[in-house]
């Protein structure tokens, strides 16, 4: 799970365990809405308003959709009333013993059918058009988020858990799309139907309407009671599911350890307990939420009985017609159903708005600063100078203070030191991933803070310890260094960096599809690919983070050679992990706690017998021990 590269500052520090536990919507959420503990948004209104505002480019369409919706509901609501007329015509015929007036009956039924068909067609058109509006809005939102990713300052990105950001741009956007689609089409229809039905009921019989409407507060009361109880139960269910899943993940991922340390029986017992707890929790959650449906049905039936009795008596008294009672029954069915729907939609809407709020929060994050000047040096020589640079990730803990150094064109500068000494920070500053707090860094005499970032970075090739490949062919991954490269150039870069050799052993050669997790190629081969990428981009300067801890030694030799090939004639900053690799560096900087404690070449530093000599000797303790 820790394949994603970590923020540099977090590498050698213990993190208190609070921030990790929070995430976006649970991945196991049910689409229906009731199962999910509705995440409360902080400012429901303004987030909802912003979400609605995003629909503005589609406003003509949305208005059309609303129009269609209204007409469809009106047709749908009038239909039963007309069918009721048909019943009356039949009933009248039977009562008066004169026979049914078939001409009137057919006319009435034909009217009803026309209305029903019109209602359905319009309802279809309505959803059809709405789907377009929603999907286009979501496309825009996704591309806005993607755009934002390119403009976010790295300090902002590094400051939060990566999973959180990922969850925002993936789960949350999915969630918004789902709830928007569901609620916009159904919520509107449901509410309009509700209004239309109430109007019709009042027109037909205010008394029966009153009976039907009395059930509304009753059903809201019941729904609320059950929903509140079931929300608690669902929370418990998700909590226990989460705990059980964590336990499963741990037991299965650490399977070998559990076995080797003989803890299997205990682990299984713990699982049994948790499993039992989950069973109880999820039973109650399902049972209590499951009661809603029968309860609503019961209320519907109460309504039905009341209408049957009161309606029957009123018909007998001649106050209303039988057809109206029949229409009433069909209205009361249309009445309870949307009520239940509206209630469950509210939950979906809640969680959609909560997601929207998180996405808006991301979109609102401050962009990285834009450059005022557009100075570009046409042919960089690669002279880099740090003068009195200070920098801290956290203002309370200054890391780099008053650091100065000069790298002449073509020189190799090696940086060594223990983890956390600030080696990676230097990279962050040169690339302007982070901005210096004080002092300046110049490239060929120009302050890099005045250069457009793109201009600065296109002069620098970077190979990081955390290899990054995207899903695509090997060719595409190499070509990332220079999108205009010809096939020959790609092959040449691959040959120079020992990529060509292993690519030939792959069944599809350069067209083999790889991705970041892919098992087709080894960690070392991935590293070679990133070197080939930098080689192809042919930069004036290089930054190499040459960690090879998980690579077998023969591949490591290839990587080292490839890096050496890459370095020739270029100003290079090498973060060295094995001292043997940088003995020929022009300048070795030994860093400790953000300070350069020593600098010089290999022989000078060994002679000085300081920090470097200690590090160097430590690396070979074992080897020298064998000589005793």
């Amino acid at each position, binding site marked *: 799970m820790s394949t994603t590269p970590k923020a540099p500052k977090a590498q050698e520090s213990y993190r208190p365990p609070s921030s990790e536990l929070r995430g976006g919507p649970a991945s196991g959420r049910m689409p229906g809405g009731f199962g999910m503990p509705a995440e409360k948004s902080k400012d429901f209104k303004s987030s909802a308003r912003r979400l609605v505002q995003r629909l503005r480019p589609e406003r003509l369409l949305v208005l059309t959709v609303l129009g269609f919706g209204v007409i469809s509901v009106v047709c749908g609501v009038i239909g039963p009333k007309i069918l009721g007329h048909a019943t009356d015509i039949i009933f009248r015929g039977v009562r008066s013993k004169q026979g049914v007036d078939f001409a009137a009956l057919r006319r009435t039924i034909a009217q009803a059918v026309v209305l029903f068909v019109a209602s359905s067609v319009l309802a279809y058109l309505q959803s059809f058009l709405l789907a377009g509006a929603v*999907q286009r809005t979501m496309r825009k939102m996704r591309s806005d988020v993607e755009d934002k990713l390119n403009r976010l300052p790295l300090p902002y990105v590094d400051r939060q858990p990566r999973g959180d950001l990922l969850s925002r741009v993936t789960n949350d956007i999915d969630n918004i799309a789902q709830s928007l689609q569901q609620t916009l089409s159904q919520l509107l229809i449901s509410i309009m139907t509700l209004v239309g039905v109430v109007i019709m009921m009042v027109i037909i019989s205010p008394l029966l309407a009153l009976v039907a409407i009395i059930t509304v507060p009753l059903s809201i009361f019941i729904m609320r009671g059950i929903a509140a109880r079931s929300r608690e139960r669902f929370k418990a269910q998700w909590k226990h599911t989460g705990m059980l899943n964590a336990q499963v993940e741990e037991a299965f991922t650490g399977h070998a350890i559990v076995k080797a340390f003989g803890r299997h029986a205990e682990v299984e017992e713990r699982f049994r307990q948790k499993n039992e707890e989950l069973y109880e929790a999820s039973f109650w959650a399902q049972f209590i939420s499951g009661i809603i449906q029968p309860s609503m049905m019961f209320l519907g039936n109460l309504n039905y009985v009341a209408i049957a009795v009161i309606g029957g008596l009123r018909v007998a008294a001649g106050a209303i017609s039988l057809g109206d009672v029949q229409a009433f029954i069909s209205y009361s069915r249309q009445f309870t159903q949307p009520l239940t729907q509206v209630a469950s939609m509210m939950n979906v809407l809640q969680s959609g708005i909560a997601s929207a709020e998180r996405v808006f929060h991301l979109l609102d994050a401050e962009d990285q600063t834009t450059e005022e000047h557009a100075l570009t040096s046409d042919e960089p020589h690669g002279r880099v100078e740090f003068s009195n640079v200070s920098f801290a990730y956290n203002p309370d803990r200054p890391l780099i203070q008053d650091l100065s150094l000069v790298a002449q064109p073509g020189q190799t500068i090696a940086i060594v030191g223990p983890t956390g000494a600030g080696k990676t920070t230097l990279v962050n500053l040169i690339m302007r991933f982070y901005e210096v707090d004080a002092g300046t860094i110049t490239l060929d005499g120009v302050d890099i803070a005045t250069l457009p970032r793109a201009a600065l970075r296109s002069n620098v090739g970077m190979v990081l310890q955390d290899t990054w490949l995207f899903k695509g062919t090997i060719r595409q991954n190499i070509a990332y260094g220079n999108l205009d490269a010809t096939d020959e150039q790609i092959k040449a870069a691959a040959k120079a960096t020992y990529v060509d050799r292993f690519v030939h052993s792959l069944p599809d050669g350069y067209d083999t599809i790889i991705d970041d997790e892919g098992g087709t190629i080894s960690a070392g081969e991935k590293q070679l690919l990133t070197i080939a990428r930098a080689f192809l981009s042919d930069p004036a300067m290089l930054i190499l983070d040459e960690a090879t801890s998980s690579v077998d030694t023969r591949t490591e030799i290839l990587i080292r050679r490839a890096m050496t090939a890459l370095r020739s004639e270029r100003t290079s900053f090498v973060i060295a992990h094995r001292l043997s690799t940088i003995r020929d560096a022009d300048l070795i900087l030994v860093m400790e706690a953000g300070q350069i404690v020593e600098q010089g070449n290999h022989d000078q530093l060994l002679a000085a017998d300081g920090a470097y000599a200690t590090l160097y000797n430590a690396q070979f303790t074992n080897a020298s021990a064998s000589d005793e």
Partner: protein
Amino acid sequence: MLAGVVGLQFVQTVAALYLPRLFANIIDKGVAKGNNRYVWTTGSVMLVIALVQVVFAIGAVYYGSRAAMGFGRDVRGALFHQVGAFSAREVGELGAPSLITRITNDVQQVQMLVLMTCTLLVAAPITAVGGIIMALRVDTGLSSILLVSIPALAIGIGIVISRMVPQFRLMQDRIDAVNRVLREQITGMRVVRAFVREPHETRRFAKVNQDVTETSLRAGRLMAFFFPIVIMVLNVSSAAVLWFGGSRVDKGTLTVGSMIAFLSYLSQILISVMQATFMAVMIPRAAVCAERIQEVLDTVPSVTTATNPVRELVCRSSLELRAASFQYPGAETAVLEGITVRCHAGETTAIIGSTGSGKTTLLGLIPRLFDVTDGAVLMNDVDIREVDPDVLRARIGLVPQKPYLFSGTVATNLRYGKPDATDDELWEALTVAQAADFVRALPDQLDSTILQGGSNVSGGQRQRLAIARALVRRPEIYLFDDSFSALDLVTDANLRAALKPYTANAAVLIVAQRISTIRTAEQILVLEDGRTVGLGTHEELLRDCPTYGEIAASQATESTAA
């Protein structure tokens, strides 16, 4: 329990179907004849039936939830137990992430299907059949409307759903693609920016974004058919009932009340048909999950406990691999083939070779994470397959290549191999593992929280804690699987120096990448493609083993520096 659910559902469905019949009576016998008393009494009967229905319906939900959740619990329990019996071989073949998905997500899916079955799927056919019977009793001729409506609805919904399912599947793929590109952009943010590839990434994203929009649009537009179809069929059928019913009432073969009851049956039948069709879509998806669950339950564990296991081993273990081989079933080549080596207490045996040469598998043979497929592993001349696994494993301290810590505290992790270890023992192990300093600096020292997998400590710290965890056990055999790679140079050297006296009486097996780490070992085993290509001391191997020579040469800069 399922029979109970079916029984309860049966009663509540029959009750629901009986209500329209009573309403028909109210109209025909009460209203039409002006009998108000009849209206009241029948109304009370309806009320009672509505009550009976809700009680039975809630009962069905109760037992349905019990049955479905109990089913889920039992399947999870069986799966967990089964995986517990697996060796590293089966876990490796099925994959830990896949096993996790199966026991969590897949079980959940199947469990939801069982729940839906208990609550909806059981009721739907009963309602449909009951409704049809009631409709036939009202008027056989009029019921022929059902012959048109039911197929029209089922086929209409069926077509929409069957076209929607592939769209949804495609949509999932495309959402995955969008998420993949975004994930790549986030994890590779530094690289993207270093190469100034933001415009390129935006183009790449625009494409997947367009794809997902198109598919969602198609799915959404198909979905738009759904409710209009249902409502149209229902309403037009109702109109048809009045159309044809009118003339039957006129002829006196049908009462008006029965006709209205018929309308209710019609909607009850059609709604249950809709539910059943809808449910039918869930079944194939759950079936896939069920298959994946079954696959785990059908996998036979390859490491089993002997029937009469040896429960005692003489101390001072000696360990021997005798022509040990390991091969995955169906694999073309063996991971390990004919490895023979003896390891003695107080000596270090190092294993070296390139990635994929079988080093980790070899270590796994000793605590029986894998069992040899040929040859044998012996401890004090007893085949370890005859030994009680717990007795065997109690003598072994394993430090895996990827150090894995459990959620809990530093102390619970360290005591993992020895629950009764004292704090002093823990500190001693931490000191040897060069972890005492950083643990002391933690806010709660030994009681500091460790997150699952050890994700809140750095790689190097995790590795040192994993080493300490093995040391606390004071085992007779230590297995270090490339355990020093994440440590910086000074720490690495200090740790190995401290380790020597601590492990003086134990047999130590070290897998390593670097010659400098292992050149003092009493014997070095050189592996290549699962075969022994050299066994001896550093000097002997330099002389006799070309592979070892190559490895040494590749690290020459370091060796000569010594």
